């Protein structure tokens, strides 16, 4: 395994915007799902690829604090994922594959506003932030629409809007385009790669999306087996399945 190293420091990145994993194992119900993961990631866009069941999703859940490491340490932007859960929640936004499971409130505006719960903003400020975010995602017209009646693409846009309104320093996206058609997949991919003012870790089977990242990681059988420049790594991955 080669730990991912930055080619050069990224301008505009705040100091400490680094993900560090050291000797990380994860076992779920006694079964090892990740073993011996070491990495240092300070690139702006990180793609994670690999076969189904290779440990990619567990890797992202680990970074999001949704599963604890069984052994080793994980630090996300200086926060220990086990000790700093509250700080981690504030710093990290997670987008899941299935937007249906992320929609927690009945209408679009309510769901986006829900992300600001506990932020200390007053009602007028919340309404303003929600309106601004929905406008940015082209969803102003849908503000009062029942969230679960949206199309798949609109639901994933809503899920992304609900994450980005909190302005997280790290966005983790677990196969965010898997359930979308080509147009919507490109739109979501474009927002993640081009517009996001945060570090991104995206798990994807969409190699076109992975190729647009700064670095790619490949997992196989619970191990981080390759890390480096996306084009070369994707070419190797394609060759493996040729």
């Amino acid at each position, binding site marked *: 395994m080669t730990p991912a190293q930055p080619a050069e420091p990224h301008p505009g990145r705040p100091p400490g915007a680094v993900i560090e994993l050291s000797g990380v194992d994860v076992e779920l119900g006694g079964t090892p799902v990740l073993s011996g993961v070491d990495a240092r990631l300070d690139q702006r866009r990180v793609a994670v690829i690999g076969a189904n069941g290779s440990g990619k999703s567990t890797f992202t859940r680990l970074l999001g604090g949704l599963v604890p490491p069984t052994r080793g340490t994980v630090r996300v932007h200086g926060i220990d994922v086990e000790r700093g859960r509250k700080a981690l929640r504030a710093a990290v936004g*997670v987008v899941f594959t299935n937007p249906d*499971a992320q929609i*927690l409130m*009945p209408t679009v505006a*309510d769901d986006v506003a*829900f992300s600001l719960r506990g932020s200390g903003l007053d009602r007028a400020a919340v309404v303003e932030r929600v309106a601004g975010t929905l406008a940015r995602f082209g969803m102003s017209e849908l503000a009062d629409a029942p969230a*679960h*009646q949206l199309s798949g693409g609109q639901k994933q846009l809503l899920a992304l809007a609900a994450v980005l309104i909190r302005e997280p320093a790290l966005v983790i996206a677990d196969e965010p385009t898997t359930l979308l058609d080509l147009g919507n997949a490109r739109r979501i991919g474009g927002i993640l790669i081009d517009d996001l003012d945060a570090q991104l870790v995206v798990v994807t089977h969409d190699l076109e999306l992975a190729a647009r990242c700064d670095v790619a990681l490949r997992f196989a059988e619970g191990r981080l087996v390759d890390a480096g420049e996306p084009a070369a790594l994707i070419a190797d991955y394609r060759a493996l399945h040729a």
Partner: protein
Amino acid sequence: MIAVYLPGDSLVHRAPAGVKLLLLAVLGLALSLLPREPALLGLVLAGAGLVLVVLLYALAGLAARPLLRQLWSTRWIVVLMVVTQLIFLGPAEAANNTVRVVAIVVLAGLLSLTTRTAELLTTLERLLAPLARVGVDPRRVSLTLSLAITMIPVIAELARQVREAQQARGVRLGVRAVVPLLVLALRHADDVADALSARGID
């Protein structure tokens, strides 16, 4: 019945959620406690209650389809109440009680049709705040309620998926269809728990 907010600019829409909740409580209590004897007076009072609710829908600009939809959604309550009360009580009391219950249920529907969930949650949390002293977490209560409202269409969609899966395979599971539905619902609950956790709620 539980309904999704329909945007509008009427007096009912603009009224604070707390006022609407109070009105629902007062009218609900009044409809329950107003005299039922003699039967004619009881029926007149119940009918007047229902007319008042319809007028409130008109004031909200929702007297056409939304009102009819709300009334239609009470059909099973009506059937259940009328049948059981006709057996045990009699026609006058069956009509009296059923009209009152329908009026209250449809009035509750007007609350959710004209109030954003976020506003309702904030108001509920404020109203429940004194209960924090006896160990009730108002935020948790209001979140549970709103999640329940949100999940109704999701569970309906899962039920549709199970039904279609049966049709695709040419089988009919009947009552046993509840097992795959339960599995899907539990899996969905796991995903929602992750989403809640990711949004900072443990």
